[in-house]
């Protein structure tokens, strides 16, 4: 690929990521609306969005906070949602490991579901890129995704007041999550994990300090992994 350079890789990243703005935007908007309605200040809502940049864990924290769960449980449960990102980090390391530390730190900060999925897919499809091109591609995918995420949250804070409660926007949170979960139920193991998760959430609802979420998540992870192991053993 003689014509390729970090510059072309960057713009290829921007173009690839553009359609994903459709998913990221409404999700960020919703966090702005729901966070403000829950009683967070503007600075706190933006603090979440800029420092954490992980919608699912932010909504998890918000939900537990509305139940006044202990601080430690809020943080532990929301971090558990983000554990999958250790896997993202590990699978990017062989590609981006040789890049300078500041670039890796910046990539880690912007390593969200969308940028990870696009970056990883591109590195697998074009393995002969230089490290500089791979880094540039990742920065390219982040260029539309991260500002739209932050901007949409800010917009949500502003327009939230104007949205009448009759629209049932509170229910957009579970609907959005169902919409993210359903396409991820690709295998029997994924379905088994999700079903365990729901059943345990109901059975363990009595647990003190809102421990039900962590406990249900852990049980469901174990079930998913075990079903996968058995399916593979049978092959």
């Amino acid at each position, binding site marked *: 690929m003689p014509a390729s350079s970090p510059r072309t890789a960057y713009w290829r990243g921007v173009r690839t990521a553009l359609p994903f703005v459709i998913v990221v935007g409404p999700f960020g908007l919703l966090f702005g609306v729901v966070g403000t309605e829950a009683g967070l200040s503007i600075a706190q809502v933006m603090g979440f969005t800029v420092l954490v940049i992980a919608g699912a864990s932010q909504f998890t924290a918000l939900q537990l906070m509305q139940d006044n769960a202990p601080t430690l449980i809020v943080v532990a449960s929301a971090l558990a949602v983000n554990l999958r990102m250790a896997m993202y980090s590990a699978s990017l390391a062989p590609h981006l490991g040789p890049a300078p530390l500041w670039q890796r730190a910046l990539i*880690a900060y912007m390593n969200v579901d969308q940028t990870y999925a696009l970056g990883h897919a591109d590195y697998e499809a074009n393995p002969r890129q230089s490290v500089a091109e791979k880094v540039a591609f990742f920065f390219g995918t982040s260029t539309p995704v991260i500002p739209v995420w932050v901007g949409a949250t800010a917009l949500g804070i502003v327009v939230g007041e104007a949205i009448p409660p009759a629209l*049932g926007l509170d229910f957009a949170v579970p609907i959005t999550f169902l919409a993210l979960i359903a396409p991820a139920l690709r295998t029997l193991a994924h379905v088994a994990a999700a079903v365990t998760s729901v059943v345990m959430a109901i059975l363990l609802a009595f647990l003190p300090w809102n421990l039900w979420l962590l406990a249900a998540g852990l049980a469901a992870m174990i079930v998913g992994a075990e079903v996968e192991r058995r399916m593979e053993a049978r092959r």
Partner: protein
Amino acid sequence: MNYTHTELWLIILALGVGTFVIRFSFLGILGDRQLPPWLLRHLRYTAVAILPAMVTPLILWPQATGGQMDPVRIAAAAAALGVGLWTKNAIWAIVAGMGSLWGLGWLLG
């Protein structure tokens, strides 16, 4: 919500730092080394293991109805899940879910 200002910022900062550490783990600290297969197998299911538990009470016992089960919300959730499974497309699932919520709410309202 019953948290002091300090507690709220503590949650935000802890979540921000913790999330960064998770994301930076292999890229920055542990480097290019293989995760044990059993750990990978568990990490693969974190999202589908925790998020369904998180939405379950929101669907069954919504705060907006004071914790009462609401057939319209349950039907809307079922529509989102069904369309999401069928189309594998998050946008269509959201359209189906919110469409059912508004449509049924209007019909029955």
